[in-house]
């Protein structure tokens, strides 16, 4: 089983990298981009085959290491 984890900055937390990317897009002539938020994408190969157990395990990994919950949100997708 594979888990896809997206880690993103919480709403309201300044994202200077996202702002720099938005600026670069504008300078390349791509109009209409109102905001860019940069995050992280992690792919985990899991030995677990039970979806509920896998979900719980990955949630614990996110809370303990993969996300800093002071500033980041995370989402988990099992495939």
């Amino acid at each position, binding site marked *: 089983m594979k888990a896809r984890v997206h880690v993103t900055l919480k709403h309201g*937390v*300044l994202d*200077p*990298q996202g702002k*720099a990317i938005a600026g670069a897009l504008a300078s390349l002539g791509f109009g209409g981009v109102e905001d860019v938020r940069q995050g992280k994408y992690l792919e985990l190969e899991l030995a677990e085959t039970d979806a509920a157990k896998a979900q719980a395990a990955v949630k614990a990994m996110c809370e*303990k*290491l*993969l996300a*800093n919950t*002071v*500033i980041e949100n995370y989402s988990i997708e099992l495939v």
Partner: protein
Amino acid sequence: MKAAVVVFPGSNRERDVALAIERAAHRPASYVWHGDTDLPEGTDLVVLPGGFSYGDYLRCGAMSALSPIMRAVKDHAARGGAVIGICNGFQILAEAGLVPGTLMRNASLKFVCRDVHLRVEATNAAFTSLYQPGQVIRVPVAHAEGNYFADDTTLDRLEGEGLVAFRYCDPAGQITPDSSPNGASRNIAGVFNETRNVLGLMPHPENMTEDVIGGTDGAILFESLVKALP
């Protein structure tokens, strides 16, 4: 004062800080590998030095915060033992939950390496007792992720309880946006935990301890510790 400097894979300021401690304490500091599980017997001060532990992978300090030695460091702090984390060490303390908040990418997106001015905001702690309240000092910074962030509730609490240790300021001691090298919330450069025995600090006092390199403002921090932890 018996000091232990924790060395993580990628630490690079451990010798600088050990030298600063040796000069102030007239005895050498011990080095402790991050994979160890115990601090040396009788350790008074634990130092988490600057550097790039684990190559800053995932997030600065995230992996080091889970190193085996950190359990002993947390126990030491819980007993009231002194702990200072400088630069990457501050990031490790924040990731470990030993000080509030976190360190984000500098607002400028640039690595900043220069001297800054700091205003000493609290002198009622072992780390700062030999400074004058409101004293302006000059020390270097060298970091890409020193932008201190905490939510407004936490920041209000830190200020209300006098747990802000140092703020970036101009040479006259004014707290201005331009005097911050990284965009930190409310110009915060260093914070204490709620019992003031743990200090997280972004600038490098250990690199301003000799007149020949520009000043001794940083040495006072280590002399304060020696006075408090003889």
